[in-house]
């Protein structure tokens, strides 16, 4: 019961923050809303008993990605400009389409009988994750690390000023 209440509150909070993210005119506010969304999602992870992911979510999304976005926004205030409206011409269609998509998805999801089971989370989840990263998923893991490295170098190369 308590869990349900917390879930509903957190869901409302998260979705509200998300709506704020996509509607806020001020880009900095949008970024703050985004941080709020990430935090809400992290709480949802805690409710799912995925503490590791929850904490990772905060570290990576709030600590790195959101900070990066805010940093970019702050660095480039002139980039944002003061153009009329944050939305483009098709926003109404987009809103309608997204809403329709949600409705259809929600109808579908509430109908599908997923084969759920009620089982406790094993106490050694983190160990499981760790050993599957160096075991079954070692190649994807390495590929992901290479991806990060490439993205790092690529970002530097893309963003650096070219003189002369």
């Amino acid at each position, binding site marked *: 019961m308590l869990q349900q209440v917390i879930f509903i509150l957190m869901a409302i909070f998260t979705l509200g923050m998300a709506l704020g993210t996509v509607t806020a005119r001020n880009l900095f506010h949008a970024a703050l809303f985004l941080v709020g969304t990430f935090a809400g999602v992290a709480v949802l992870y805690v409710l799912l008993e995925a503490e590791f992911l929850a904490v990772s979510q905060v570290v990576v999304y709030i600590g790195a990605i959101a900070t990066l976005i805010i940093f970019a926004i702050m660095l480039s205030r002139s980039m944002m400009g003061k153009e009329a409206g944050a939305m*483009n011409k*098709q926003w109404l*269609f*987009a809103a309608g*389409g*997204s809403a*329709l*998509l949600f409705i*259809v*998805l929600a*109808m*579908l999801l509430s109908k599908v009988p997923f084969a759920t089971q009620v089982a406790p989370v094993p106490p050694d989840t983190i160990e499981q994750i760790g050993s599957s990263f160096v075991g079954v998923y070692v190649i994807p893991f390495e590929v992901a690390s290479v991806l990060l490295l490439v993205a790092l170098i690529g970002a530097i190369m893309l963003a650096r000023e070219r003189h002369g």
Partner: protein
Amino acid sequence: MSESIFNLTWLIPLPPLLAFFAIILFTNRNKRLSSNVAIGAVSVSWILSWLVAITFFTNPELVKKPFNLMVPWLPTGTTTFSMGVAVDAVTAGMLFMVGFVLTMIFIYSSGYMTFPGHLDPALNTDGLDPRYSRFFAYISLFATGMLGLVVANNLLMLFIFWEIMGLCSYLLIGFWYEKKYPDPKQITPKEAGLKAFLTTRVGDVLLMVGMIFLYIFAGDLNFQVIFSGDTLQHIAAMTVNLPLFGETSWAVLISMLIFFGAIGKSAQFPLHVWLPDAMEGPTPVSALIHAATMVSAGVYLIVRMSPIFMAASHGHNGAMTFVAFIGAFTALFAATIAVAQNDIKRVLAYSTISQLGYMFAALGIGAWVAAIFHLLIHAFFKGLLFLGSGSVIHGVEHGHHHAHEQGHDEGYFDAQDMLNMGGLLKRMPRTGWTFILGGAALSGFPLITAGFWSKDEILSDAWANGHSLVFWTLAAAALLTAFYTFRQIFLTFFGKPRTEAAAHAPESVPSMTVPLMLLAVFAVVGGWIGIPEHFPGLGTILNNPLGRLMGGQAQVYGLHYEVLDFHLFPVVASMTVALGGIFLAWLVYGRRPLKTGEPDPLQVWLGPVHTVLRNKYYVDEFYHATVVRFARWFADMCYAFDSRWFIDPIVNGVGRIGRWFAGALRRFIDEPVIDGAVNGLGLVTQAAGSVVRLLQTGQAQNYLLVLLLTVLVLLAMVQFV
């Protein structure tokens, strides 16, 4: 086990081949490096050859089981054609000779290939031939061919290397292809190369036909298989009905076809015409190809194929007799021509033909061992003589240039004409003395020189086996040989210089004279290994090691070999003709040396006979009048048939009809129907595109919206349909 050295045999032809590719691909720019690469490579081959050869010589029992190494090559139906290397006594002997002579000639060439006189002196940058590197590439490839031919263990491989040599011969004879002479009748290097190539081709085609027949009957071309008793009996027993000749055995036919291949390569009558003209190539080439190695390949082929010839002479003796006849005839024929030549290299060329005739004659009378002996010895002294003549020519050319600078311009000057020489022994002592040693060997100067022993053995064999016609023919040829050789020596080295050029000729560089001296050693001592056992006194000292070895090999192959008793008559005859020839030459040329501008005394005494000899019995002219003219006429007819009368008109007619038809198609179908359709399609596409392009806003968000709507439709279908 020392025999394991034989496993290296297949490596012998390899270093020159690598050198060839290295020079062609990498070191072409650097002349000295190229020559060093080639000499280094051939030296490696030389060392390997001598290792193999000496190992064989020191283990004479190996003749019983010759070394044979094979790898599968071509799958041919049910059998597999193998390639590989084999070493028997003949191969060992050839390797001993070829490796050494090749190396000597390579070293000699590095000194000889200076800037040639016929080119524009402005091109002369470093005193070397502009195509110096190319020359070494060619002779490296040639060395591959010769060494590969010697070690090949089957006829097809032998043939392939044979053809490689033919190609190199062509390339090297025409090496100075831009050279022209003021006399339009004189053959140029380019034409000479072509002539050599085409003439030997006649023999090669016949050889190939023989090879194919042999393959049909033997099922293999490996020497071991061909020479097995079964195969030999089979081809001797099978007969074929030939037009003109009637019923003959396949062995006879095959051996004759192979023999013609050998005739082409070894320049025997009637295919001898190319060899004298091949002297247009650089002198090392003449020495290398046209004295020591390639021409002896023909003899080597017959030596190899002797079991087949034996099988051919099983019923009647026609094949062998034919060989002996051709050989003896050529020996005398060429010797007579040589007497009347003034060109120093041409004399040697005809002497080569003549000496090869000796070998064929020896093979024809069954003196297999004597033929091999003469083949090896001849290579040493003939190589020496050619290199020596090259050195002489070089010296005279240098002398000419020297005189030319002093202002004695005489127009065109032939540095190879012996009448332009004289007294060179003083100017070029090393060249002169080695040349005299080689000449003595060629003349068969008794007891000392190698040539005496090898020639004597052939004559003894001929005498002992009752081939008196051959004996007398060869004896006459030997007399002439001694005569023209010493004629050459007297004209070249004795007396007084007859031109300014000869008076100023310098001695050649050490890289040319050192090979001469090394070869001279072999030209003398080489013969001692073959002194007959029963020769009084000398025979017992060395006890004829060559004869024992080759004789043992001959018995393994089922060939005729016997240790001859000593007969005084052939030895005396041989000594007489040699010394007599030398004496005659001294009488005519030595006693009273020729003066400048004085004609050859022989010309005066023999008159028209000398003219005939000088013009080589008009064989070339005869060929021109018959074979060449017929070939040209036939080619003309073919051309006319092809382009004027029949084929071209038909083709043109078909073409014209086709063109008309195509024009009609174009006008009535292609342009209105097909082009219209294609253009219409294009127009429609364009029109459609100009409408549809409005959809393409270039904004990813628009596309995403469309994507969203599509997904919505699909989901709705899942949901409601």
